[in-house]
């Protein structure tokens, strides 16, 4: 009977739509790598039990000191500053009920970018030839980190591993400080009008976020270095690194909250190389070098 044939085809087709359902189950994100490499590595690893120290490359010692001054500017129209969503305790956190602006990108009229961190990437561990004696003075000092009107007064703080961060709270309301990264994570309350010392005791390769759990819009960044060569630009975008080691190639890193390591800049003033937030230059003895680095606003989410 013809009909039967046709119908069978039809129903088979119908089932064909249903059966492969199983195929839709998620498959493991297949991790493909060379088994032979693994074998090699495994034997190499098994080679010696104790972890061997990576031998640091031998570098020439600096011949003297030089100072690097500069300003970091933004070209193009900077991104508009967003308003923070302040949903509680407006009486304290929105003085006069005025909207409060985010501080992730702050640019002044002349285009100077605030809160850019610029720091020396690598310094041989405790080698006095690499640290200018002037820095010995505040080696064990303390850096103030205050909160007022539910904002961190320093949006980006930087200090030495040997210095203590003096966490203050000048608000009538309680805060807490959630240090999510860096050499020592922590999360503690800072009662109204009180202060808490916090010693990091280690170095961070790059800035890490800190925040307040009670007021989620409060955020800041911190950088901890074991050497003294770091700076945060002021609201004109200016920075100064005094007494950098001279006569040796220096690798500085330039970081900003929104752009992270600033990809590329156009520099006036002599530099060797700039790429991916790495600024390479070499200072002569007692040189006072003036730099102007300008980065396109697109890197900061602008246009």
């Amino acid at each position: 009977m013809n009909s039967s044939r046709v119908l069978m085809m039809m129903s088979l087709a119908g089932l064909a739509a249903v059966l492969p359902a199983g195929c839709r189950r998620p498959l493991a994100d297949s991790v493909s790598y060379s088994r032979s490499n693994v074998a090699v590595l495994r034997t190499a690893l098994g080679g010696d039990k104790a972890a061997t120290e990576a031998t640091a490359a031998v570098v020439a010692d600096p011949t003297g000191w030089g100072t690097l001054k500069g300003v970091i500017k933004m070209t193009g129209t900077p991104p508009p500053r967003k308003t923070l969503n302040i949903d509680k305790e407006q009486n304290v956190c929105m003085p006069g009920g005025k909207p409060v602006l985010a501080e992730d990108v702050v640019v002044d009229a002349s285009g100077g970018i605030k809160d850019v961190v610029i720091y020396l990437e690598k310094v041989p561990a405790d080698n006095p030839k690499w640290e200018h004696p002037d820095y010995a003075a505040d080696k064990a000092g303390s850096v103030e980190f205050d909160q007022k009107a539910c904002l961190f007064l320093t949006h980006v703080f930087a200090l030495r591993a040997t210095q203590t961060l003096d966490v203050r709270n000048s608000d009538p309301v309680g805060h807490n400080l959630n240090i999510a990264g860096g050499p020592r994570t922590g999360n503690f309350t800072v009662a109204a009008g009180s202060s808490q010392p916090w010693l990091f005791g280690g170095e961070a390769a790059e800035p890490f976020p800190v925040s307040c759990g009670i007021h989620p819009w409060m955020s800041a960044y911190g950088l901890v270095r074991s050497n003294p060569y770091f700076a945060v630009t002021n609201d004109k975008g200016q920075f100064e690194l005094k007494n950098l080691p001279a006569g040796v190639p220096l690798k500085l890193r330039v970081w900003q909250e929104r752009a992270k390591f600033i990809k590329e800049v156009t520099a006036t003033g002599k530099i060797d190389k700039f790429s991916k937030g790495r600024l390479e230059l070499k200072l002569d003895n007692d040189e006072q070098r003036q730099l102007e680095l300008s980065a396109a606003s697109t890197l900061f989410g602008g246009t």
Partner: protein
Amino acid sequence: MSAVAVPVHDTAHGHDQAMDAGTFIRTYVFSLDHKIIGLQFLFSTLLWFLVGGLLALGIRWQLAWPWSDMPIIGRMLFSAEGGQISPEFYTTLFTMHATVMIFFVIIPILAGAFGNFLIPLMIGADDMAFPTLNMLSYWFMWPAFVCIGLSFLWPPYGAGGGWTSYPPLSAVPEAAPGSQWAQTMWLLGVTFVGVSSMMGSVNYMTTIIQMRAPGMTMFRLPMTIWAMFITAVLQAFALPVLTAAGFMQLMDRILGTGFFLPEGLIVNNSLPATGGGQPILWQHLFWFYSHPAVYIMILPAMGMVSDIIACFSRKPLFGYKPMVYSISGIAGLGFIVWGHHMFVSGMNPLLGMTFMVSTMMIALPSAVKVFNWLGTVWGGKIQFTTPMLFALSFVSMFIIGGLSGIFMAATPVDIFIHDTYFIVAHFHYVLFAGTAMAVMGAIYFWFPKMFGRMMDENLGKIHFFLTFIFLNGTFFTMHILGAVGFPRRLADPYDYETFRHLLPMNQFMTICAIAMVATQIIFAYNFIRSIFFGTPVGRNPWGANSLEWTAPSPPGHGNFDFQPIVYRGPYEYGSPEVDTDFYPQTQPPPSDPARRVQPEKH
């Protein structure tokens, strides 16, 4: 083959003019011919039968080798879990197995396939009363197919609330992976099935009441037709309740109503929008349909088995009227026993007692039917054809299924065996060993009428023998598990000290189950091959009495090439009035009054 045919002059609806009559679509896709619709149902349900069987194997695999990697396909389907069935997919497996088997296989294959194909033929009508409605009743299955099919495709890969879909698990989307949108799909699917069956049942009732051939009184109807009639009545009265309940649950899920959700639920850390409902309400509504549904799933099988047994015993059906009465009795009682699914559900224990009594009573008509079948076999000249073997196995298996039912009816015993494998054994004996085997028999029996060719008897017997062995291997052992208290629906029961030692028996069952499914390949081959290459047959290959065997095989559009006139009931085998051992309903009585036998007082 001697079907005495009174030729009718109108042969415009001669058979096999299908291709040249009208467009292809109207003839084969949206056909109005009850036979084509019946075959459409048959093919769809057989294919879903395959899906349901594979799902069952998934369940069995997990129970025999829990969490272990399925050979060949495990890694491919469950690589995210390292090749193992994840627990929520296990819930999907048994939910979908039951759903597919009940709503897409058993109900449509009985009422849809055989109901459609046989009713007009057996009552001597040229088609259903409402051909278009009939066509719609098939095409309303497709939205259901699509819904359920879709629910397989995206997470969580099918509903996981069990086929009973008890709220809150199924009503709160957060409650279970399987009760997210898949559950909504499930409810829609079941609703569409309901609509389809509803259309069917209205049609069957009208047809059977209105369109019987001249002389075909109600008590000359074959048991199959009686069963279909009662089934239609059951569906007509029970289904609306399920459909309504389904919509209530949909509203609980989508609109945030609270029919089934009590106050103060905390499910997966999310609070349902409303409260004030009662989960047990769903159980009452659901079982008010689903218990009659159990009879919807067995009565037509009983009817067809009666016909097959009478035919191959070459002797009248024993106690025709008691059979009719007991079917009707089952239908009546079927509406007041639903509570026996809920003895430990927390409903008032007093209700439990009432339902226990009514449940005990409903065992009676079933018993009567069994005895009558035995009576039919007694004193006959039995031909062990494949259909007969399947029919006999139905009787033998239904005895087991029926008797094990008495344990659950006994409320105190049910406290222990409720939701254990004893139940699973019980309804698999009724539905698989019972109905499914009867359906197999019916396919072998009416295949010649459907396609004008015989199925291979030898392959058929091998198919029967293996199926019979493996199904008992799979399901009989479940009684033993049940006696230990082995619960259903556990992805890994072997965490429990009480059940740990049952693993070997489960592995045995799984092996039997795999073999059973594999055996069906023989059937598939035999079925498909015979459609095209089976030995062609005439009108009445089995020498049976009922009307369909007087029509051509396969019957053309309009079924009969003559106007059938009915002189007697369908079971006059071995009547002294004729020399043949069968006596078609259309054959006029002998002219010589001496040969006529007086109908016995009965």
